[in-house]
């Protein structure tokens, strides 16, 4: 029997705010334990949480980036459970009226365009961090109350690879949008996987199994692959799957059972009485909508279409948005934008890396790249001299035309002057000259090289080739 996997992901992402969700404590990684805490985030009695406006703004922005709707009413609920990292004994979250609903994420998988539907992205709070010692555990509440967005997909994912690519796409969208730094090392992105298998053609879903404890996207991929194979094996051996929560052991590369449905938590959700609902106004939403940036995949496709760039070049400009913006500036009005891409990627990027500077530090305007290309195309300078001009542009910020003028780099296209160079080269190298006369075409290149050298690269190479051939055949 053939089986198929049905996978949904719940991804938790820390929002890039200065302060926590309900209090003014810093949202900061790496501070000394329990120094970014106050009565609110420690869950002391008698305190009142107040929502962080910036977190609400980033949530709505995420909604737009993920093609979601932002409903006109959202509220917060208490999810009750006891755990040492949860100081209030409840987590504030959004149960039935989340801030954003029904969207989708598009990405490429094996050259094909894929889409995963988003059920919701709701705003909640992070918990503290536990440390485990030989005979006790310790809790640092610096992370407790950090705004956390839970992004829930529909069960549209069918493989570990697809889960992996979805997560990468989601991460780059959130980074691009400035919503989260998505630093895995700092635990800013965490993921739970819901996974079941069923015989192909069967409508009814199999028993859903949730996997926790994956701390990398590749871990999610491996856990999903392992779990799909495990579930199919159980079914094929005539066994039964039960709804349960399993833990991913990254070192062993296996999942093992944490708890079954009978032990499932009873969270006893109810509306939080301290937090008033959020009713986003039209003006507020419109202002946020204006901040929506072009997403990586859309940008890649547009660059390929608009400037006829190969995928490799477009990828570079997606990966480094500032460099991409610079390229677009340079390519304005150019007949062949690919040439500008070559300069920006091969020369400019290399120089920036070499000098440890960024696009913002550049001394010359993007339009100078087009001017430089124009000088080469117009035959005023050779492409070799253009490299020299570029280095000078980078160093001084002067325009290409001025550099050519000042340094006397203009290409020699005067046939009288060139002919003198050619005759000198032939005279000085009788061997190769004879070789060419005897039919060895390649010998011409050697002579051409000598002329270029003698002219310090300024001779028009095409004219030199023609002149040499004419003289030798004469």
């Amino acid at each position, binding site marked *: 029997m053939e089986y198929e996997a049905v996978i949904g992901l719940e991804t938790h992402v820390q929002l890039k705010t200065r302060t926590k969700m309900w209090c*003014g404590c810093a949202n900061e990684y790496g501070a000394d334990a*329990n120094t970014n805490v106050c009565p609110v985030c420690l869950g002391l009695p008698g305190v009142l949480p107040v929502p962080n*406006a*910036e977190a609400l703004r980033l949530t709505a922005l995420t909604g737009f980036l993920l093609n979601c709707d932002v409903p006109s009413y959202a509220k917060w609920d208490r999810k*009750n459970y006891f755990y*040492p990292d949860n100081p209030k004994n409840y987590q504030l979250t959004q149960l039935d009226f989340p801030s954003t609903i029904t969207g989708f994420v598009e990405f490429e998988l094996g050259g094909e365009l894929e889409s995963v539907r988003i059920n919701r992205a709701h705003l909640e709070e992070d918990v503290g961090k536990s440390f485990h010692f030989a005979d006790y*555990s310790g809790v640092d*509440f610096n992370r407790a109350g950090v705004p956390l967005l839970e992004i829930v997909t529909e069960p549209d994912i069918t493989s570990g690879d697809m889960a992996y690519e979805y997560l990468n796409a989601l991460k780059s969208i959130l980074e691009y949008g400035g919503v989260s730094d998505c630093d895995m090392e700092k635990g800013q992105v965490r993921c739970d996987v819901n996974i079941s298998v069923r015989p192909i053609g069967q409508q009814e879903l199999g028993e859903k199994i949730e996997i926790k404890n994956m701390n990398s996207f590749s871990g999610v991929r491996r856990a999903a692959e392992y779990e799909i194979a495990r579930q199919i094996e159980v079914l094929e051996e005539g066994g039964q799957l039960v709804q349960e929560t399993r833990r991913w052991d990254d070192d062993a590369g296996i999942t093992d059972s944490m708890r079954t449905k009978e032990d499932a938590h009873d969270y006893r959700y109810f509306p939080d009485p301290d937090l*008033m609902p*959020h009713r986003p106004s039209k003006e507020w939403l419109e202002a946020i909508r204006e901040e929506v940036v072009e997403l990586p995949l859309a940008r890649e496709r547009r660059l390929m279409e608009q400037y006829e760039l190969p995928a490799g070049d477009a990828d570079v400009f997606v990966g480094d948005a500032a460099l991409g913006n610079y390229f677009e500036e340079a390519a304005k009005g150019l007949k062949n934008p690919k040439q500008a891409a070559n300069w920006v990627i091969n020369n400019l990027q290399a120089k920036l890396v070499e000098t440890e500077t960024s696009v913002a530090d550049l001394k010359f305007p993007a339009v100078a790249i087009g001017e430089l290309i124009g000088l080469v195309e117009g035959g005023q300078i050779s492409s070799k001299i253009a490299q020299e001009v570029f280095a000078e542009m980078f160093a001084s910020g002067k325009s290409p035309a001025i550099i050519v003028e000042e340094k006397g780099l203009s290409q020699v296209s005067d046939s009288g002057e060139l002919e003198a160079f050619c005759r000198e080269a032939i005279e000085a190298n009788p061997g190769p000259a004879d070789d060419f006369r005897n039919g060895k075409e390649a010998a011409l290149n050697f002579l051409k090289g000598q002329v270029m050298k003698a002219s310090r690269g300024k001779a028009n190479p095409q004219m030199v080739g023609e002149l040499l051939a004419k003289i030798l055949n004469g």
Partner: protein
Amino acid sequence: MEMDLSRAVKLARIELTPEEEQRLAPQLGEVLQYVEKLNGLDVSGVEPTAHATPLSNVMREDEPRESLSQEDALRNAPKTANGLFVVPKIVE
């Protein structure tokens, strides 16, 4: 009406002696019965709401404020070590 306490006791992480259970079960049952009266109200024309206060969009700017010192934060903790709140060993 008596309430089955076992589930509530488990969820609240508390322990009751058999005597306490005997005394509390009918009392809590009475409370439930009292609240049950609300079910007799006709609310067919009333829109459900999570809040009775006519307030929304209460929020604050994303401006950091001073936090407690570590010493103050841990002051009420029964046990501390290395700046952490010490809790029984977590095994899940």
